[in-house]
């Protein structure tokens, strides 16, 4: 990246550009992948500095010797009286103490399909019943094999009545099996989060779960070539499944062969089983 672009990106994130310059940068971000990658790396670096600064500031505040609250004992008698009044009020007003628990997760939705014949998918972590290896068409084979990607860190504890970040909204929909909502809330994520390999993997899974294997494959193809080894391996597995779901059997087989040959892949055994069923 040349010096001019570096300065342009820096000024863009510092919000120092004129309106015309800003529009021009945004056009380039949309059309020039190298420029976009440089901008995202810049955003990450600034994010790293802020994370560090925040942690440092919190530590500095927490490590300070605490000052006593002036006059904290002055109104002790008044406080006791107030406490008594509150207890009495509480006694005569016997209402429930806590908010109602969060409603149970809604069942997974089944949106209009972009490829027919694909049965709906279960929420992440739930297994599908095993299918008979003989006479099963690709769509059924996909349905019996596909389990939406999950990992422990996806579980969020955000409640329905609390302010949420876009990431939490996306995650909450995904982990509840509300894949349509997850796809919709993906659009609200900031650009760096949208482009993160993990987010791309989750979006592709949501698309697979809502029977959109072609769109899923378009995301998974670059992800499977990603420099991030973990997500690349998962990307290859789900790409093979999306090819299976689209009925591209020869491509699916070729992809599964590669996974079967890869001893480091966590999907090696699944690929072997699936290949047997495909024969």
């Amino acid at each position, binding site marked *: 990246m040349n010096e001019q672009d*570096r300065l342009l990106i820096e000024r863009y994130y510092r919000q120092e550009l004129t309106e015309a310059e800003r529009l021009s940068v945004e056009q380039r971000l949309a059309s020039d992948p190298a420029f976009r990658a440089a901008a995202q*790396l*810049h955003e*990450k*670096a*600034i*994010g*790293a*500095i*802020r*994370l*560090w*600064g*925040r*942690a*440092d*500031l*919190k530590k500095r*505040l*927490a490590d*300070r010797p*605490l*000052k006593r*609250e002036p006059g*904290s004992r002055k109104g002790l008698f008044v406080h006791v009286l107030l406490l008594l009044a509150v207890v009495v*009020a509480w006694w005569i*007003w016997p*209402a*429930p*103490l*806590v*908010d109602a628990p969060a409603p149970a997760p809604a069942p997974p939705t089944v949106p209009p399909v972009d490829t027919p014949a694909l049965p709906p998918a279960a929420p992440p972590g739930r297994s599908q019943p095993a299918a008979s290896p003989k006479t099963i068409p690709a769509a059924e084979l996909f349905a019996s094999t596909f389990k939406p990607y999950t990992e422990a*860190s996806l579980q969020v*504890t*955000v*409640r329905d*009545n*609390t*302010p*949420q*970040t*876009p*990431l*939490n909204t996306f995650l909450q929909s995904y982990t509840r099996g509300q894949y349509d909502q997850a796809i919709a809330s993906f659009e609200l994520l*900031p650009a760096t*989060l949208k482009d*993160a390999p*993990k*987010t791309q993997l989750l979006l592709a899974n949501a698309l697979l779960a809502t029977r959109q294997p072609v769109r899923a494959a378009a995301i998974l193809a670059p992800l499977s070539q990603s*420099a*991030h*080894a973990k997500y690349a391996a998962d990307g290859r597995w789900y790409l093979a499944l999306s090819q299976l779901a689209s009925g591209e059997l020869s491509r699916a087989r070729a992809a599964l062969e590669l996974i079967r040959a890869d001893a480091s892949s966590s999907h090696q055994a699944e690929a072997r089983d699936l290949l047997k069923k495909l024969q």
Partner: protein
Amino acid sequence: MQNPVTKFAQETISALRDGQPGILEDLYDQFRPAFLAWAGKRFRTTPGDLEDAWQDAVVVFYEKVMSGRLTALNCTVRTYLFAVGYKRLLKNYRKINRFLWQDAVDKALKNNPELVLIDLDDIWEEERDLLLAAMEQISPRCRDLLLKRYYEETSIEELMQRFEYASHNSVSVTLANCLANLKKIIQEKSST
């Protein structure tokens, strides 16, 4: 004549922006006991979590002021800080439901739903670890310089004096090199 409440808020914001030492620490100490008591009545959680929420509230206030996103308040600084801490706690804990009265914080939140937006957490956990590890890896002087410039929003002029550089250009070049080094480390870590 300016309202004394907003005048105090304005003075606090200006003092922070000017880098006046001790302002943030004073705010932290001044309202901390009251916040812990107030929030402790509203949430079933541990003192450690209340303390953590208070730290976050002060940090959010600081960051918003320093980044220029918060230049004035239509409530007291105390109410603003309490509202941020309250929203922070709401993210993770159930609130005790019944209150016979509403205080300034409830009113501020009700009247200004956009009053505070918590944006501390919108990042994947592994990404956070990676970025912090990258920061750990750069030289202490680079880290200090980058923090002053991009977190505390210190001007190039001030950096020149504080770090004893000969010119604006030397500061800018060093900053660019430090940032390039950090980006390189992030890129390397992202591909492993």
